[in-house]
């Protein structure tokens, strides 16, 4: 069973399968289904698919039904014209879509520029591997700055480097000067990144 068939089974809503068939034939049909997916699918966490809630799963499945030719343009439009929930759904769907750098990076960069911490975290999922290191470090630092939990950053320890450590140390110093602290998860990351002298 493919990933999207497993997700479809976990969601268990017949209208989604019918809409997918229509979208595969006529990609422009996705617009109204995508917009209405929240009220049709509900917004509850899916028991059979950890990490997904029903509206996001429905929207991801609609996106996964798009023919590969022209898909990047449809994704970009749906994201650009999307509500916050629609934008989030596009970002969360990127791994399921196996989106390449050309499709993903413009959307990830937009999400990182926003002040909505949900979009910021969603941009730091598995598809963040397409971001260059400076952009990725800045996004992680923005999480720390806004208090977004670092547990939501995919592959944090594998990718965190000395430059990120220097940036975190700078923020911690600035906070200390103001009588404030950095969140505990950031302090712990900085600690893990700081080399210890032997003996």
């Amino acid at each position, binding site marked *: 069973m493919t990933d999207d068939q497993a997700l479809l089974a976990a969601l268990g809503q017949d209208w989604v399968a019918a809409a997918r068939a229509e979208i595969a034939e006529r990609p422009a049909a996705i617009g109204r289904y995508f917009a209405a997916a929240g*009220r049709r699918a509900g917004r509850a966490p899916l028991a059979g698919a950890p990490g997904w809630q029903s509206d996001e799963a429905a929207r991801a499945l609609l996106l996964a039904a798009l023919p590969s030719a022209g898909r990047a343009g449809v994704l970009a439009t749906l994201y650009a014209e999307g509500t*916050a929930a629609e934008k989030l759904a596009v970002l969360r769907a990127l791994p399921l879509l196996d989106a390449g750098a050309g499709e993903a990076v413009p959307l990830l960069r937009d999400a990182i520029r926003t002040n909505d*911490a949900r979009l910021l975290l969603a941009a730091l999922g598995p598809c963040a591997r397409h971001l260059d290191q400076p952009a990725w470090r800045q996004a992680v630092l923005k999480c720390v700055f*806004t208090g977004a939990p670092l547990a939501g950053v995919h592959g944090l320890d594998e990718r965190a480097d000395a430059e990120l450590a220097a940036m975190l140390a700078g923020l911690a110093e600035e906070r200390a000067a103001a009588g404030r602290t950095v969140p505990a998860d950031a302090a712990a990351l900085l600690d893990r990144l700081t080399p210890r002298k032997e003996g």
Partner: protein
Amino acid sequence: MRIFDPHIHMTSRTTDDYRRMAAAGVRAVVEPAFWLGQPRTNPGSFADYFDSLLGWEPYRAGLFGVRHHATIALNPKEANDPRCRPVLDLLPRYLDKDGVVAVGEIGYDSMTPEEDDAFARQLALAVEHDLPALVHTPHRDKARGTRRTLEVVAESGIAPERVLVDHLNELTVGPVQEAGCWMGFSIYPETKMSPPRMVEILRRHGLERMLVNSAADWGHSDPLLTVETARAMLEAGFDADDVDRVLWRNPVEFYRQSGRLDLSDLPEAAPEFEGSSIRRGGG
């Protein structure tokens, strides 16, 4: 006390207002699309504004546990500007979206032919998208404007119980009540309607289909006048259930007709915002 403000322009309010509103019992708001003081000169400005009503504002409200919905339309004043008319072509894609609970604010400002056309076309869009309509009544020539509004509503074929006619006063409430539409009152510090006058209108006209809002915007206005009106009702002898009906159940009943009102608890997954730019300032 739980409060649903059915008409408030949060775009022009600060984040501190959301905090004060939440502390005072405001749990849900509807923000109608309207003008912004400075006239807009192209449809792109409206697209960004509508996106903000469906993106940034619900997020900002959610940080304080307030549910935010929107109504979307080309407002009557800017409907007169030929540069803004193409906004009517943008509306269908917005009217499909979750979180949009009515077409509005539509109606009259100066009662021009352009306003006639935009009003009728947007009432038709409401029918087509299965949405209620929020209708603004003009500040000038209000009595005649309200009568004409009711005639256009009747001609459009939309069911009167799916129409909220707003900014009413002692002189305009009667015809709207007879027409079977919902009646909206904007409580302002000095103009439009005050809490004591509002209480008197509720005494005379009853509580059915009555909605009270602050309509707070960038002008001299106060987002807590809904709460103030609730207190004035209690002092005047209405009971807590009456207050709950006018300030919670009535707006829920009206906007629920959209099928898109979401009053479920806000998800707890939203990150802790101790250090965020909008709660603390900076960045």
